[in-house]
């Protein structure tokens, strides 16, 4: 059986205005309009979204897990970027 491959799309939903779009899942569709409709029919059946993005999966550039150390570990030592690094006397109250 020879089956032509229908492109894969990633679906992002905005649950309600004020929130960012969040990855909801993926689906197959021949083109962008079909992908948008399918996203609506598959991923918003229970009021999960008020806005949809569909992106061809092939268009996503991902970082390599093997490079995670190089990319993300150096930041762990920069604790002075966080407010808890600094001391404020209790009497001063919330800052």
């Amino acid at each position, binding site marked *: *059986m020879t*089956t*032509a*491959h*229908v492109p*894969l799309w990633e679906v992002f939903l905005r649950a309600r205005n004020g929130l960012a779009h969040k990855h909801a*899942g*993926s*689906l*197959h*569709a*021949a*083109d962008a309009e*079909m992908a948008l409709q399918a996203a609506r029919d*598959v991923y918003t*059946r*229970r009021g999960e979204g008020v806005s949809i993005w569909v992106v061809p999966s092939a268009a996503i550039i*991902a970082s*390599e*897990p*093997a490079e995670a150390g190089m990319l993300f570990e150096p930041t762990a030592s920069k604790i002075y970027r966080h407010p808890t690094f600094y001391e404020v006397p209790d009497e001063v109250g919330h800052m």
Partner: protein
Amino acid sequence: MYTQALNAKDAADGGAEDADRMARFQARIDAEERIEPNDWMPEAYRRTLVRQISQHAHSEIVGMLPEGNWVTRAPSLRRKAALIAKVQDEGGHGLYLYSAAETLGVAREELVDQLLSGKAKYSSIFNYPTLSWADIGAIGWLVDGAAIMNQIPLCRCSYGPYARAMIKVCKEESFHQRQGFEIMNTLAKGSPAQKAMAQDALNRWWWPSVMMFGPPDSASQHSDTSMRWKIKRFTNDELRQQFIDATVPQAHYMGLEIPDPALKHDAESGHWTIGEIDWTEFKAVIAGNGPCNRQRLRQRREAHESGAWVREAALAHAEKRRRRAAAAVTAAAAE
């Protein structure tokens, strides 16, 4: 949403894998870290997941057929709408699961081909026929009930995309079992003919449902690896017992009888114990000799084949649009 521990045997991974990487992988699993698509993983872990997730997806898709068999005959508009929504959910769950399997580097088309060629397995429960409306109740109550027992632990599966799909599935499924129970309960409280219908459905679906959890732990070859990898968190027998303990009192509440003369309540352990399971039937149905194996696959195959021209049309149209857009760009550039 249905899963079944019918995974074929899978030899432990060969020594080819770097022992050091294996140890680090296992350490991540032991630390309850999730494994994500591009992370290094042992080949056997990948194979096990592709097989289990795709079987799970196939089960959802084939599972649409026995229930779909009653969609047009649902006895009230309320039941009709609920059943359409439920069967639709199963299609959605199949879709989420195929997507999860695809993150492991295998295309949905390949997985579907494996199903249609008879190479891949799906939950054998769907090789039983739905003969009366009560079967729709029994499937929701028993089959979905059994599936939920299996699926809740899968929400914590070590493979991220599978776990995330299962969380979505479990959330959506919460109405399925209640829907089935309500149908059964209504029939059990209805006319004598309706009650008989409900009892008959329970008689036919009880043992296949109990078998959905797969072979007994004593005979299950690769539970060990799956447990070590936290793909699986409870054994077949543990989940089966949970299901029996939850379901027997529900049957009694409805005034229905579990078709097992050996069934008894063990006051000491608090568990219900059941009689001997007929594993020869289980094996026969898995091997292809169930009441509906051929019928279900034929229906899937026919749907796939008769939809081919539609999928081809959509792809051809998309290609035409691309070409037109490219031509427009070229024309604009030439100006």
